[in-house]
């Protein structure tokens, strides 16, 4: 994929610090993500990559630094924050589909309640999205009746239903059985090629190689490397990245 970045970046983190008690989980992290760019964040567990992802829609507040989205600093709370979140799609490791609602209701809840769309219009678009992720025939089932891969694809459809400006993926395939990883990555790859701005925390190096514009390597809360995937995998500059890659790529 070529560099598609134009104009001002969509997401900008500037000197962001965050502590969990004494633990410095984000250590002076600065990062900007352009419109249409796909940034994959990798690193050993505990490196702060999930936290980084969750700060962008303020599921995790930060202690210092600034985060701007689409030119605006993140609102602290209340209605403005809810509005910002409605523009940033989020996909979780554990899917987090609403357990008491059908798949279609999961997908239409946000559009109906937050965007105030007409239920019939929201349902129509919801079905189209479910069709796009390949589970239109599961629309009336409850989340627990679906496989993990189907649930995660439903969760992606739910986030897309808000027509977000960017999508955050927090280890979207880590809770899946191996044979279901592919179907979720396929959906993500097609999103990426449609020009969606994406920040993806993952351990799927194959996805990072073929779908990412940039790979970010994090360790101990610091952003250690930021490079195009081909360059990063062929020639990691830091000792820690080399060490990490040697551990995961030998198997």
């Amino acid at each position, binding site marked *: 994929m070529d560099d598609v970045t134009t104009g001002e970046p969509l997401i900008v983190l500037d000197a962001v610090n965050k502590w969990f008690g004494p633990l410095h989980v984000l250590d002076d992290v600065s990062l900007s993500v352009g419109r249409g760019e796909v940034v994959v964040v990798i690193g050993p567990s505990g490196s702060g990559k999930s936290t980084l992802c969750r700060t962008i*829609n303020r*599921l995790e507040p930060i202690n210092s630094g600034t985060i701007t989205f689409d030119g605006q600093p993140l609102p602290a*709370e209340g*209605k403005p924050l*809810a*509005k*910002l*979140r*409605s*523009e*940033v*799609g*989020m996909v*979780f490791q*554990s899917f*987090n*589909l*609403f*357990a*008491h609602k059908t798949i279609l209701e999961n997908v239409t*809840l*946000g559009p109906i*309640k*937050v965007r105030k769309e007409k239920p019939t219009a929201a349902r129509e678009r919801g079905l189209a999205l479910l069709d796009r992720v390949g589970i239109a025939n599961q629309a009336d089932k409850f989340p627990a009746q679906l496989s993990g891969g189907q649930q995660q694809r439903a*969760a992606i459809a*739910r*986030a897309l239903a*808000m027509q977000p400006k960017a999508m955050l993926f927090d280890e979207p395939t880590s809770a899946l059985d191996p044979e279901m990883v592919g179907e979720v990555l396929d959906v993500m790859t097609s999103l990426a090629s449609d020009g969606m701005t994406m920040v993806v925390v993952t351990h799927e190096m194959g996805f990072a190689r073929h779908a990412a514009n940039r790979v970010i390597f994090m360790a101990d809360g610091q952003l250690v490397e930021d490079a195009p995937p081909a360059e990063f995998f062929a020639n990691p500059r830091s000792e820690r990245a080399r060490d990490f890659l040697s551990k995961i790529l030998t198997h």
Partner: protein
Amino acid sequence: MNVLIDKFDVFAGGFWLTLQICILAAIGALVLGAIVAVLRISPVPPLRALGTSYVNVFRNMPLTVVMFFAAFGLPALGSNADFLRIPVIDSLFTRLGTDLPYFRFALIALVLYTAAFVCEALRSGVNAVPAGQAEAARSLGLTFGQNLRHVVLPQSWQASVVPLGSVIIAMIKNSALAGFFGVVGDLSATADQLTGAEGYAFVPVAIGISLGYLIMTVPLGALLDRIEKRQAVAR
């Protein structure tokens, strides 16, 4: 044991009055407890502090003391709790509308005390909903109120209903204190009157009173068991 037959009307009257207190107090405690629970889980720190202090005060104070405050504190402040004389409701529950305020005082004390426990039962249900559910709702842009209404509360209800029932059963038994704070003619005051003023033997009277409370509490307990079994099957 003749007292149970001879004085059946007295027992029945006591039962009816106690049932009225319990119905009104249960409604009041559920409403107030729900409000306090929303305060306790709200994202605004001062509201959270308010909810938490309410629970700390009323969960940790003996009901007798709350009753004393209601029955002696309110009159000292010049209030006869007339705000509880709610039109229409006071004609259904005649004691609410009378000039003697003790029924209202007892009701206030029971509601204030029980609401703290209702709040905690509701909150334990909310805590039983996995945190990811509320997180997913927040990241869609739902506000705190929408999140509660559409995502968290519908799922917490299942986990709340059995502990809530236990709270209400405890409240029915606690209502026995009302007879000692000026409420004439409820089940517990009936015992006092029959044994003290009319000289009946204590044990048969006590059995009659106990039956009265059991008629209210046992069916409620059985209902809770059924709900619990049905939930276990659904899972």
